[in-house]
């Protein structure tokens, strides 16, 4: 076998391994110039639709099942109780999702690593207890107490990360120990008092108690969000065009921005019908935007995905795997403590049992229902928002119907199972379509 034979075979070989998953691209690819194997997206809106259909067939459902689920939930509960979609009810959902939603954002980070953190409920309790003991019992400055509470969450999470990454104890066990240990610390901190009430006018009371009543606030935020989103897409498309790379057509940008605009302005309108824009929702959205930026646009975020996908490959690429793991657990702990303050604010104070019960399960369920994989390396920060919206909507609906909490548990459990089933089935479809 001479090397010229090899060469010829390599270069003139037929496209025998044409990827079966791109029938659309192959059929519509414009002939000679484009290699049929290349998955070139047609420019224009038609190309966008073809691409969307291809993704659906390939099992890349993305956020579609959750969004559909939310619509179904809304329709069912609205038909059972006309107050479900009332301004007050929607506004309540917007406030209630903040605490668990922020905790779920931290869990998404951990899930992206392919790990689990079972301690977030207890850490939330410790965060609330630290704040209450410092601020209320010992008269420390309110803001300082909040910062120390969040800092203690960061320290606890970093400790978990240290035992997991440096010592090599499975994260499941480390955080299970944390789950028990930190709830012990929480009870010890609370001391003889069963609960410490949130004082009037404190920072923590405002977390879920403050509303921007001026209607300009909600509309303004919606406007800023829509403009920023549209502008970001446009500049990206412009830069890609200048670099002669495939770019989003203007029509797609218009459609995407329009969808975001409808959602944002409808939400703003409904919130303004009630008590205005809740501070809790603003803070939750700020956490989401920041976390999403970190995960998708920074080197650190890329490293999280790499470690979650293939830790050995990440290590060989020169990524400090230990540091990524420790910091991710630190972030989860920090957001758990922050979320704990919201829960304390909602329930009127820190208690010995804050964060116990089903808080942990709701948080993890939210991240998974939202579409973040339990197996690492795949997921979006926004899944925390979608997932917690599903869970909170169900709870809100069942509360309005006056259903007992045991029914709520069963239904939430069934929804979680359904979400994981959808995830597994779509993963199987993705495998047959050559994607994992």
């Amino acid at each position, binding site marked *: 076998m001479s090397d010229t034979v090899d060469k010829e075979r390599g270069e003139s070989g037929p496209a025998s*391994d044409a990827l079966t998953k791109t029938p659309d691209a192959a059929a519509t690819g414009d002939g000679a110039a484009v290699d049929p194997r290349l*998955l070139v997206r047609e420019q224009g809106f038609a190309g966008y639709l073809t691409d969307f259909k291809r993704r659906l067939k390939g099992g890349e459902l993305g956020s579609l099942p959750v969004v559909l689920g939310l619509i179904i939930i809304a329709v069912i509960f609205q038909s059972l109780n006309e107050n479900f979609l009332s301004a007050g009810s929607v506004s309540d959902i917007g406030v209630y999702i903040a605490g668990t939603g922020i905790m779920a954002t931290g869990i998404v980070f951990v899930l992206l690593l392919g790990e689990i953190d079972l301690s977030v409920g207890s850490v939330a309790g410790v965060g609330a207890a630290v704040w209450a003991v410092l601020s209320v019992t010992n008269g420390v400055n309110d803001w300082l107490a909040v910062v120390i509470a969040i800092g203690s969450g960061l320290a606890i999470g970093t400790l978990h990360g240290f035992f997991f990454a440096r010592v090599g104890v499975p994260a499941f066990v480390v955080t299970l120990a944390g789950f028990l240990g930190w709830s012990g610390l929480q009870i010890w901190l609370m001391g003889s008092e069963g609960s410490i009430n949130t004082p009037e006018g404190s920072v923590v009371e405002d977390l879920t108690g403050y509303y921007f009543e001026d209607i300009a606030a909600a509309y303004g935020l919606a406007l800023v969000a829509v403009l920023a989103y549209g502008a970001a897409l446009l500049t*990206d498309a412009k830069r890609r065009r200048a670099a002669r790379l495939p770019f989003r057509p203007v029509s797609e940008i218009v459609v995407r921005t329009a969808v975001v605009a409808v959602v944002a302005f409808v939400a703003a309108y409904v919130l303004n019908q009630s008590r205005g824009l809740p501070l809790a929702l603003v803070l939750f959205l700020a956490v989401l935007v920041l976390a999403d930026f970190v995960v998708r646009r920074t080197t650190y975020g890329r490293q999280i*995905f790499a470690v979650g996908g*293939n830790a050995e490959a990440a290590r060989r690429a020169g990524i400090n795997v230990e540091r990524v793991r420790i910091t991710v657990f630190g972030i989860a702990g920090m957001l758990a403590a922050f979320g704990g303050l919201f829960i304390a604010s909602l329930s009127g104070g820190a208690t010995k049992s804050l964060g116990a019960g089903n808080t942990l399960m709701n948080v993890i369920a939210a991240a998974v229902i939202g579409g973040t994989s339990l197996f690492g*390396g795949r997921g979006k920060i926004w899944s925390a928002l979608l997932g917690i919206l599903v869970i909170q909507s169900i709870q809100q609906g069942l509360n309005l119907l006056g259903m007992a909490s045991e029914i709520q548990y069963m239904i939430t459990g069934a929804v979680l199972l359904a979400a994981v089933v959808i995830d597994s089935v779509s993963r199987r479809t993705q495998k047959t379509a*050559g994607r994992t």
Partner: protein
Amino acid sequence: MAKEAVLALRGISKRFGAVQALTDVDLEVRPGEVIALVGDNGAGKSTLVKTIAGVHPIDDGTIEWEGRAVAINRPHDAQDLGIATVYQDLALCDNLDVVANLFLGNEVRSAAVLDEIAMEKRAMELLDTLSIRIPSVRIPVASLSGGQRQVVAIARALIGDPKVVILDEPTAALGVEQTAQVLDLVERLRERGLAVILISHNMADVKAVADRVAVLRLGRNNGVFDVASTSNEEVIAAITGASDNAVTRRQARTATAGTDKEVAK
């Protein structure tokens, strides 16, 4: 052979506990040359490569880079010198797309923010110059075929502009056409003036692309052959030790006796 060696190993020894994995191994790698490293299982190929890549620091001997002695104690040292290694198990992140994999650990960024467009552009240019065909640079590596993954892994090694590329059995799990694609790529690396160390069990591949073949046997050098003027049988004999007969043993003995005498003087 006029060019000076970019990388030269002199008298390398490596021991793992009671096992002497490498004994007094020499190897020279020149720019624009593909040198195949062959040998039976356990001959020490992988160990030798790992000493170059900095995974296992050497116990004895010297490593020369462009004529001066260097110490390679960590993978990072090797990368800094300009040695890129493509391991057999590829070490790609399946969940990341091609661009992200190419630049993993080497991202183009301003401050800590990724410059996706610059990376995508450079990735397309690199893949173009190597004539690598993949469906899209923005799909997860998991959806590529084995051969495509292999060429992505090799392309990934080139991001840091290395001078020496080590390929550990790049064609081991590939079909006929995919093997040919990888061999094409190896030739293109040579045309770009890179030195390539190719580990392979497949003599057909070695004959197809290598300029020289270095044979290891039981952790020792067992000859370096010029591919053009050597038959497969001779190389295979060196690998299996079929040439390890009375004649060669006697030659080896007299040779060592000669050097011993010189030392004695």
